[in-house]
């Protein structure tokens, strides 16, 4: 049964979080979204562009109606959730609809702040927050001439620019001495004011609004100093407030925003908050980049794959205000204890300032030329010392030439701040997919999808990539030469399009060799089996011979047979039985293996089913990418040093995890004391008994790439060993490349990351659930074949001897 996920708020942060969830697990949730606005998710940042006439409402849509439909999402647009019953886990709407949830996300965003002054409710007064406000202003501009914008912040200036474009006279009223005081220092602010005045805006600074007056509709604004102006349209752009009423009323802890922890969980279980409505460590974010970061973390948590927590964001502002580029980050004001380096080119209207505290770069403001903004932002985040700052960074851009700017950027430098897309990621996408336009780059990487401020840089990168750098970004690690897709891309496509067979995957994803090769066919077979346990039937013709015949092929074309002997503990009767079978089939060699098993070597292919039937033992899987053996030492039953029952635990582990298919073979061992007679230190999972508990080691390897295992954790009980091992195996199954041993995988993804995943109770529970689903779908293959005449005929019997006949 799918869990029910309800999202309240159909805006940028919430819907991006849903996109992240779909990326992680398409099948996990039945998703319902409520949005008060009658539109699909659109790019609110670009509303000013709509107002300014540069773009249409259709063009700022981020997710079309069709997108919701394609992803099976129920969208109720124009419907507002009015009540949340967290006891019974359901929500009610203003239309009387009742929807149940298992998980609930608040992404209710912000409301514009309307000054509580007389006349604020008069017709002709509007906020600037949504499409409706935008449409209203466009409508007013057709009839009226005089507009007043209250608020000299970014939003107010954007509105003012739009109203100018619509042919209105615009007064901008601001309570402070200078504009955009939260993003700019006084010098930059004055430069901006001068520029905007040239464009036709009129500023009324240090003016506090007392009331809006008018007869039937707004006619003017009166200030506390007694002066007043006439206005037919008043736009309130004095700020926004997190929209938290519903949350407060539902008993969720609310401060300024809805209070969330590092995994975006609110004070009420199964309820989360993301975006502008959320307050994290005392901070409410309003810029899009942090909101997207939050969405990613929440998606992982809600899918049971908790990864890195959200630890807050350092923000920078890079904007184009009315055609003027401005940037600021960190502590950019000159205060006690700071010094600054400034470049002020009044003629060209360029101003750059870097603020230094105790020799370290802590902030910057750029005006007119912001091309070095990203670089400075990285330096601020790293806390670089002043020496790292090359003065050329502050000289006019023309001196270096623009081309060299993108060339000089490091691969880790962020190009699109909203979506956190680096230069490396963009170049990689350009090289791999042969991208030619900014739009293509946007579709592949999300770069420039939000505020669009980085379009210029992306365009330069495109140009640049056609040149000398193209070769640096070579093709990623694909599954094999038959495809250009990586493992991750293939898995995502399999899940999204619900591809069910190897053939289907290859044909839908455009494999270059129609029938694949000896690398991709077994790999796809594994991935499909992992994704669809119980549903997917292995394809014999896509398996390597050993796994097809459940025996190991030998140099001479014969096979070996290794029956399961749990924990390496056998009995006289079992040994007698094996000896009898070996004699009956004239087995040329009987060998004790490194994993404490008995190997019957030199068996003919057609004898395999008969030998299995006579043995009457389960397959030991000595041929498979699966759990091979759990090697054990004697343990405390006999050993005078043993502190734990290693054979008992080893047998239990082998019985629990046998038949589980993994990306590569998995060897385990259990030792009863740190003398480690079972060699747990070089196993994929090695257990070492200590006084009062067990140590769990992972990622060891005794083969070509000798590697000592890492201590994952120490636990007290056998049950905990089974649980932790199970979660480890499942995470390995889900995230390793086919044929990647745990030793390589642990190094690639990092032990710390694996710990974070496994130690999270909820994630571990989800992993174990999927593991048990996979385990319950397995059965002993030898027995299966012994009982299946058709399989024996198809796989084990050849045509035999034939006589030639002469022909005329």
């Amino acid at each position, binding site marked *: 049964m799918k869990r029910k996920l309800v999202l309240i708020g159909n805006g940028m942060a919430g819907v991006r979080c849903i996109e992240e969830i779909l990326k992680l697990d398409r099948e996990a949730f039945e998703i319902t979204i409520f949005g008060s606005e009658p539109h699909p998710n659109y790019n609110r940042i670009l509303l000013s562009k709509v107002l300014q006439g540069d773009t249409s409402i259709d063009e700022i849509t981020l997710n079309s109606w069709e997108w919701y439909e394609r992803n099976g999402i129920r969208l109720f647009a124009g419907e507002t959730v009015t009540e949340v019953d967290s006891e019974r886990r359901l929500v009610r709407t203003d239309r009387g609809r009742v929807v149940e949830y298992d998980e609930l996300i608040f992404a209710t965003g912000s409301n514009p702040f309307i000054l509580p002054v007389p006349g604020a409710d008069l017709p002709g007064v509007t906020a600037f927050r949504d499409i409706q406000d935008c449409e209203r202003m466009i409508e007013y501009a057709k009839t009226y001439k005089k507009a007043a914008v209250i608020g000299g912040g970014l939003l107010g200036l954007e509105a003012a620019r739009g109203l100018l474009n619509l042919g209105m006279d615009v007064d901008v009223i601001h309570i402070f001495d200078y504009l955009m005081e939260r993003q700019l220092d006084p010098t930059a602010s004055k430069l901006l004011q001068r520029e905007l005045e040239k464009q036709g805006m009129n500023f009324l600074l240090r003016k506090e609004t007392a009331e809006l007056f008018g007869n039937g509709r707004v006619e003017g604004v009166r200030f506390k100093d007694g002066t007043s102006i006439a206005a037919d349209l008043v736009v309130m752009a004095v700020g926004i407030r997190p929209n938290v009423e519903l949350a407060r009323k539902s008993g969720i802890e609310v401060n300024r925003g809805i209070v969330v922890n590092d995994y975006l969980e609110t004070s009420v279980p199964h309820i989360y908050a993301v975006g502008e409505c959320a307050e994290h460590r005392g901070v409410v974010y309003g810029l899009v980049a942090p909101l997207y970061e939050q969405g990613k973390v929440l998606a992982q948590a809600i899918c049971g794959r908790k990864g890195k927590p959200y630890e807050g964001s350092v923000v920078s502002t890079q904007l184009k205000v009315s055609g003027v580029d401005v940037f600021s980050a960190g502590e950019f004001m000159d205060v006690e204890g700071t010094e600054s380096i400034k470049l002020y080119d009044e003629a060209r209207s360029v101003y750059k300032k870097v603020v230094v505290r105790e020799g370290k770069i802590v902030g910057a403001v750029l005006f007119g030329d912001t091309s070095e903004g990203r670089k400075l932002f990285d330096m601020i985040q790293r806390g670089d010392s002043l020496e790292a700052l090359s003065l050329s960074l502050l000289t006019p851009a023309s001196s270096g030439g623009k081309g060299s700017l993108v060339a000089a950027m490091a691969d880790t430098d962020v190009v699109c701040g909203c979506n956190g897309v680096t230069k490396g990621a963009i170049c990689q996408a350009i090289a791999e997919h042969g991208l030619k336009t900014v739009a293509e780059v946007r579709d592949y990487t999300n770069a420039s999808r939000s505020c669009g401020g980085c379009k210029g840089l992306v365009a330069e990168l495109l140009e640049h990539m056609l040149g000398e750098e193209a070769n640096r970004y070579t093709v990623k690690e694909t599954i094999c030469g038959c495809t250009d897709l990586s493992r991750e891309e293939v898995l995502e496509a399999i899940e999204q399009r619900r591809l069910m067979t190897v053939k289907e995957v290859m044909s839908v994803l455009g494999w270059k*060799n*129609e*029938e*694949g*090769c*000896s690398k991709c*066919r*077994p790999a796809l077979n594994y991935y499909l089996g992992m994704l669809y346990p119980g549903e997917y039937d292995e394809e*014999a*013709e*896509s*398996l*390597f*011979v*050993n796994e*097809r*015949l459940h025996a190991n*092929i030998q*140099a001479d*074309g014969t096979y070996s047979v290794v029956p399961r002997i749990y924990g390496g503990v056998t009995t006289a009767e079992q040994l007698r039985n094996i000896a009898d079978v070996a004699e009956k089939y004239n087995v040329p060699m009987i060998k004790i293996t490194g994993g404490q098993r008995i190997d019957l070597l030199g068996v003919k292919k057609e004898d395999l089913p008969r030998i299995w039937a006579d043995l009457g033992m389960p397959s030991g899987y000595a041929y498979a990418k699966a759990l091979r053996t759990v090697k054990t030492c004697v343990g405390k039953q006999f050993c005078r040093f043993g502190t734990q029952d290693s054979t008992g635990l080893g047998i239990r582990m082998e019985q629990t995890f046998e038949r589980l298919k993994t990306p590569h073979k998995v060897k385990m061992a259990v030792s009863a004391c740190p003398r480690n007679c079972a060699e747990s230190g070089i196993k994929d999972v090695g257990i070492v008994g200590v006084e009062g508990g067990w140590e769990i080691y992972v990622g060891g390897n005794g083969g070509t790439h000798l590697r000592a295992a890492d201590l994952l954790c120490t636990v007290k009980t056998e049950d905990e060993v089974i649980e932790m091992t199970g979660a480890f195996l499942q995470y390995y199954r889900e995230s390793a490349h086919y044929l990647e041993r745990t030793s390589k995988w642990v190094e690639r993804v990092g032990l710390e990351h694996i710990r974070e995943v496994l130690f999270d109770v909820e994630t571990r529970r989800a992993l174990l659930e999927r593991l048990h689903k996979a385990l319950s779908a397995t059965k002993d293959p030898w027995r299966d074949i012994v009982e299946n005449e058709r399989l024996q005929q*198809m*796989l084990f019997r*050849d*045509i*035999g*001897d*034939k*006589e*030639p*006949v*002469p*022909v005329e």
Partner: protein
Amino acid sequence: MMRVEVGTIEQLPKRLGKCVRIGALELALFRTGEDRVYAVENRCPHKGGDLSQGIVSGEYVFCPLHDWKICLRDGQAQAPDEGCVKTYRVAVEDGCVYVEL
């Protein structure tokens, strides 16, 4: 010329090889995904591997011992490996498969 009836087409599952012995000669028979039947000497030019047990893709088989890729049409090992296996003409008539020696 000698001709050997090696069985019916139904005895050859698609993309799963079968081995047939004719005197001292051992052949690997393959019915490809496109329903063509090929016969080659069942001995990889590398270390004599049992080609009949290899993974079949299009008109190629991958040797199960060391993954050499052998073309079923002309018997050539594919680069970077070098070598060749003997190929034999096959005729399918009325559902019966014949190999010409």
